[in-house]
């Protein structure tokens, strides 16, 4: 395990970016990982098909929360159509550490929440890879 990546994850866990709520959000979406009790909720403001602003709240393990924090940083300003293309590998690259199958669920919770929100907003059906 490269420790710089881990330091980065811990930093996002201890100092989450874009933490909070958006009063005028167009998308509000929340999901949890019942087995570990990880929870992630996202609020997104959309303008012209673009993520104008985004916030998240949640609780749980470092992997799940850091993943949400990093993801919010990366999708601000992205078009919803681009967000739809984000996949599991994107998250793994973003985190940059090796994950056991159990921890993979933690890492992917934020993506599940984000995509559920975006697909619902677009009135489309989400197909989850797994």
């Amino acid at each position, binding site marked *: *395990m490269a420790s710089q990546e881990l330091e980065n994850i*811990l930093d996002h866990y*201890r100092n989450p970016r874009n933490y909070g709520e958006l009063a005028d959000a167009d998308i509000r979406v929340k999901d949890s990982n019942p087995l*570990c*009790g990880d929870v992630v909720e996202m609020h997104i403001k959309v303008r012209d098909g673009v993520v104008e602003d985004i916030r998240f709240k949640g609780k*749980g393990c470092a*992997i799940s929360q850091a993943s949400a924090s990093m993801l919010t940083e990366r999708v601000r300003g992205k078009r919803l159509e681009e967000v739809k293309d984000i996949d599991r590998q994107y998250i793994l690259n973003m985190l940059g550490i090796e994950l*056991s199958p159990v*921890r993979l669920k933690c890492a992917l919770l934020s993506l599940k929440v984000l995509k559920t929100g975006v697909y619902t907003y677009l009135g489309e059906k989400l197909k989850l890879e797994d």
Partner: protein
Amino acid sequence: MSQEAASKSPYRIREDFPILSARRGSKPLVYLDNAATSQKPRQVLQAMEKYYAELNANVHRGVYDLSIEATERYESVRRLVAGFIDAHSWREVVFTRNTTEAINLVAYSYALGKIKRGGKIVFTEMEHHSNIVPWQLISGLKDLKLEAIPITADGYLDLSQIDRFLKDADLLAIVHASNVLGTINPVKKLTKTAKEYGAAVLVDAAQSVPHMPVSFKEIGCDFLAFSGHKMLGPMGVGCLIAREELLESMDPFMGGGEMIREVTLSSSKWNEVPWKFEAGTPSVGDVVGLGAAVEYLKRIGLDWVRRHEEELTETALQELSEIPHLRIIGPESVKDRCGLVSFILADIHPHDLADYLDKTFNIAVRAGHHCAMPLHAKLGLTATTRASFYIYNTREEIHMLAEGLRQALKYFKA
């Protein structure tokens, strides 16, 4: 040291367990997840291999020598287990897959058949899911009421209202030793009270039978369930110990071969107990392995096992309580605990902590709700970290755990 004393040292015992000396990576394995499953000594592995190499045949069927010998091996383990658990007779020993299957057997064959519509089953807030969900599954079929005896803040059963719970109960299903709190419940006393009210009693002994002397006769309950894989035996075999007259009066759990005496196309007559409850080809090799495990445990003695685990638990409680921001769950007194300690370390999520201990020190602990979600909800927690001990664990391993936890505090900047 005498031969006898030497064989009762965890250092000597470790040599019997291949997995404890097999290296995975650079550090030796510190295995502290024994409440989930124990490791297996060479004696058990060899007994199973020998069975399949020299004795394998289906049981209770063949008229040829090999089958007769296999049957004799299988049935000899039943007698061995009966003695080990202090049952009245070998007919009280039913082989199942595990504790879970034993409890389900009681749910379907006893509770569903014998409890009147609208009756009541009582369990406790500290049950493993396997002693909650089977009752929920059948409750709807007969409008059964389910009630849970609460726990106190210090991790004991709150028995202040026990008469109210038991007075109209049909069945008390209770865990002997909690796999999260570690609490050892007064099952003998509770069985007596339940019986005075006319309720049947099932004891989930998954965490007690492997770790301390347990007597079915002395507890006086009707049903007692445990798993072989938590007591040095292989996965795939467990036991239901049940009073013979109850087994006689109950309907079978599953239908098929072995459990019948006579079958016509329209109806069947059941075999005698306990075979009535063992439909299909049993896991004979696993039963043979369980027999070797019981012999191993008898040789070291359950009194020694209990004492050894008390020492380890005492050390763990002591060392962990000195770590800042560490909160231990469950009773303070070692005498009231089985050999495990669950805890919370600062705001570090148990999954992160277990992951860190594994990757950094090769220490295997359990993180999560340990199949006891209602208990965790009651404690206001989603997860805890648990270290659980067995005969091959040493004080040094507890020191390593404590050191690992101190390092974790620094690492997570907690």
